[in-house]
């Protein structure tokens, strides 16, 4: 039913070993390129809190974009005087959002 000649057998076997060799040879280079994104820089993991200045410097209705480790962040002081801090990465396309003091809402300029 399935007639495998000796020649075909050697070919398939040869191709099989070539594929294994190629996988072994390319894997290091693949990992090399991947690990750039995977490596945490020391900065990211260390920052757990930081100071943006005196509370009085921020009037209600104002905001500030700032750097939190390697993450862009946004602090908003609402009219009621409360402080709110957010990760400023937009969930839509990954841009950095900002606060509009006129419209009193957070928006992203990348639409």
């Amino acid at each position, binding site marked *: 039913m399935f007639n495998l000649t000796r020649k075909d057998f050697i070919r398939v076997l040869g191709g099989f070993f070539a594929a294994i*060799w190629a996988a072994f*040879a390319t894997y290091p*280079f693949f*990992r*090399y*390129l991947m*690990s750039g994104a995977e*490596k945490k820089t020391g900065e990211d993991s260390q920052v757990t809190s930081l100071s943006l200045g005196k509370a009085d410097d921020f009037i209600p209705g104002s905001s500030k974009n700032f750097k939190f480790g390697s993450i862009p962040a946004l602090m908003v002081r609402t009219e009621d005087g409360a402080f709110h801090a957010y990760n400023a990465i937009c969930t839509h396309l990954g841009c950095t959002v900002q606060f509009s003091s006129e419209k009193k809402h957070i928006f992203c300029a990348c639409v």
Partner: protein
Amino acid sequence: MLGEISETTFKWLDERLSLSAVASAAGKKKVPLHKQSFWYYMGGIAMLLLAVQFLTGILLMVYYIPELSSANSSVLFINSQIDFGWFVRSMHSWGANILIFVLFAHMFSAYFMKAYRKPRELTWISGLGLLMLCFGFGFTGYLLPWDEVAFFATKIGIDIAEQVPLIGGILANLLKGGSEVGQGTLSRFFLLHVIVLPLGLFAIAGIHLLLVQLHGMSEPKSFQAQAPEKKKYEMFFPDFFMKDLMVWLLAFNVLATIVILFPWGVGPEADPFAAAPAGIKPEWYFLGMFQFLKLLPAHIGFIEGEKVGLLIFALIGGIFAAAPFIDKGENPKLSMFFDIYGLMILIGLIAFTIWGYLA
């Protein structure tokens, strides 16, 4: 089904690229079989190693930073933080050294087999151009990790360049790019290493390989002298090519094994204001010449010793390069002279290199 698809694809490409013309030309190429056939593989090994240099070089550029305060630490980062960074870096460093070694073998084998004779004079000259470019790669690449040894070796190299008659001062300034070896030098060496030299290499290697295809493999005198029925050949395609592939596989695996057993380290960061540490030496392929220059007295007559040394190199190298134009194969005495001349250069090179190591 599969055969049909590949047949149609081939036909489509063939109508546009004349593939079958190329294939039939390659199909006619024959490689002479004799005792020295082994050396025909050297050029191919150089090609493979060159490909490895390009691949690993591009990968290194992904993380390397050609800036004074980051260069050394970025190499350290590659070596210690990035997965297989040590592997890629060591492939590049070891590969460079092995490539130059293979080029020496390729050059001397072509020389002693008199492969440079008509019609291959330009193959010979373009080959020498490739060797010079590879020396350039070695010299510029050595500085990039910005470690102690590299820094001082580069200073010495530029100092020697300054001794080149007439244009030395200009050459040294162009290389340095600043009053001292510093950021200017690093930027220039980086550009030379990753853009300028590769472009030159592509161009000249293209010519070299085209000429090799045009002429086919040279046949040594002893082979030519044989009776026609005794001369043995093999087809380049597929026989020699198949062996070429095997040799490439072997060369790649040998390189990978060396790399794994002896990964390349990073020296301490260069401090331009610290005293030179003991044992500053150029790379091994410059060591013989370096040792020779060291032996010369500071002044020979009116002229500085190093200048005289460089003139001697130019003379020796010039005659070596001119071999195809003098030794045309008609005069057995000239042929003999160039055999001995080449042998003396080879022995001198080896002796001075070993001497440089022991000194």
